[in-house]
């Protein structure tokens, strides 16, 4: 299938949730609700104990997920259990991918790490039907082994372009990116914001001639944001914290899973609608 297909016909809405937040069953329902709400692809967070690129909202989601017992192994089962027919992307940190091949050996034993690297995890990811990876702490310079494994198993590797990314680094990413490029709308970490940053348009302008879809994320919260961003030329919007907020609130209030799922679906619809509105305010993006 390939991640690019998600952006083929119209601006894509790409939601993020941490898998297993706040528990396995509810999380399955929530992800499926996003699909029903119009998601074109879904980023599923595999929680890592040191999520250095996340703001408080997603950090807390990760803590809930870890506490409910999420592990890389269960994550793969989670993906397999999902009943959605949009492409799924694994968003996680490199150490988990890297350690997966090690998972049977005693750690804390002083043994030399195996040289397998990311390959075993990518292989399993392909088996359960994941389409790609976003790894925020893996810059292009260090991505070789993961890129190779993804190629081997037919998965995409998404890179993040930041407002501060230099031209030189853009080139390095362009060579390696596939699926879509994740345009970071502002500096900082993930988290819902009340406005849209000007940096977005500038960033989009810098990569306008890239031949992968451009999805913008970081801080998008409402349909209006989505509209503005697509209007500015994005091929899609990535929304995480605003959705995670709904999960967190439901969890704190002890709301029934079905109700929370319905709220997620509703926000998904709003965001997707916003993206579609945005598409009308500008010439349809062209594939080169």
């Amino acid at each position: 299938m390939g991640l690019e297909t998600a952006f083929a016909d119209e601006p894509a809405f790409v939601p993020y949730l941490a898998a297993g937040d706040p528990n396995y069953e509810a999380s399955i329902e929530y992800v499926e609700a996003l699909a029903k709400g119009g998601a074109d692809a879904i980023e599923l967070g595999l929680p890592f104990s040191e999520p250095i690129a996340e703001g408080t909202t997603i950090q807390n989601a990760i803590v809930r997920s870890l506490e409910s017992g999420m592990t890389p192994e269960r994550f793969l089962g989670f993906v397999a259990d999902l009943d959605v027919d949009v492409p799924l992307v694994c968003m996680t940190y490199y150490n988990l991918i890297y350690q997966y091949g090690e998972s049977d050996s005693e750690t804390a034993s002083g043994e030399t790490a195996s040289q397998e690297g990311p390959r075993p995890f990518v292989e399993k990811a392909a088996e359960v039907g994941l389409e790609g990876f976003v790894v925020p702490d893996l810059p292009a310079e260090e991505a070789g082994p993961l890129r190779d494994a993804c190629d081997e198993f037919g998965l995409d590797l998404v890179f993040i372009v930041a407002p501060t990314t230099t031209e030189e680094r853009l080139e390095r990413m362009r060579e390696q990116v596939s699926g879509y490029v994740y345009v970071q709308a502002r500096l900082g970490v993930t988290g819902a914001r009340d406005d849209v940053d000007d940096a977005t348009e500038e960033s989009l302008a810098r990569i306008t001639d890239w031949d992968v879809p451009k999805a913008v994320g970081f801080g998008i919260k409402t349909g209006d944001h989505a509209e503005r961003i697509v209007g500015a030329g994005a091929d899609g919007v990535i929304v995480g914290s605003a959705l995670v907020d709904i999960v967190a609130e439901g969890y704190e209030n002890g709301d029934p899973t079905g109700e929370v799922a319905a709220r997620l679906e509703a926000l998904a619809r709003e965001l997707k609608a916003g993206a579609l509105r945005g598409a009308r305010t500008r010439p349809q993006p062209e594939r080169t």
Partner: protein
Amino acid sequence: MSTEDAHDPKFGEYGGQFVPEALMPAIEELADAYERYVLDNEDGFMNEFRSRLADFGGRPTPLQYADQLSERYDTDVYLKREDLLHGGAHKLNNALGQVLLAKYMGKERIIAETGAGQHGTATAMAAAHLDMPCEIYMGETDIARQRPNVFRMKINGSEVVPVTVGRGTLKEAISETMREWATTVENTHYVIGSVVGPHPFPKMVRDFQAVISEEAREQAIEKTGGLPTDVVACAGGGSNTMGTFAEFVPDEDVALHAVEAGGSSLQVDEEEGVAPNSATLSTGDEGVLHGARTKLLQDSDGQIMESHSVSAGLDYAGVGPELAHLVDEGRVTPVNVDDDLALEAFHRLSQDEGIIPALETAHAFGYVEKYHDDLGDTVVVNVSGRGDKDLETVIEETTERDLDIAPDMSILQRMGGGL
């Protein structure tokens, strides 16, 4: 400074730059500044750095012959007195270097993480000295157990930002500072506190700290007519370790001992994700944390464990990549010392030599106490810091343990109250 290639972000398989894209330009800019100012002394940076280290910091620090310990171990023990550096630990060497570098780079603001609070206080002092606004991120657990250092940072005019995630120690503080950096990277420099993090931090911090071994090596030759047989330093992140070892690394006959915190036990609790120690070099395995590939305390999935040590400054699940590399190469011997032995060593140095060491430092002396038979005839131990910050912890932990060597503290209990 060192013969390796300064451009290479790796030490063997360790090191690298595993950071969010938003930070990449900042660390590239930093790597560039490191090469220009630190390695090539552009604009006389290193001259100003060394001159401020001398006048503001109090360098050189002495290499002192330890009368009582030498007699006790029947070997010549020399103490490298980093505890006499301004602020009370080796940390200022690095903090002053980085804050000054930030100034040369035109940055307007400093952030830093801190565990024991020593790096935080050193950074706060350097920032005040060089007139830079400064915010320090510190885990809540550490805030509680290193209160005097929190006061000191505030008094030096820095903001102290409590980090409440996780167990609230150094690991969480570093993660949080990286997040903050990602938000403010354009005008802000992140003064990392040890030889950890993405390139160029491990090399740069080592180079700032290498003044310890530069001096110690010269002083040892001057005092003993030759090189020491052994050099001992405690290792948390590894900055005092690498600083103490750096100039001795090419001296193949000098044995280098990195003493980690054995905590209460070397056994890990996988279920809880807790290692009751911080013995990363001895028991950890390879992984990626805080921007670098290095040895880590992690569970079989790759989740980072909560480490533990009676000394907050050693309480870290990672370690400098260069140190991991030197251990794999066999150049540095990793050893560890548990909480009890460290506390005993704390009291021994205080009573026998009149030097109250930091609890971190006490680990190095615990090692010498236990393994002095294996050491050669001239041992240099780095006194990485003084123990004023640890008084409260020591009293608590000593009372719990009922160590023979500990003084009777009842005069203070009688009078009630905390420190």
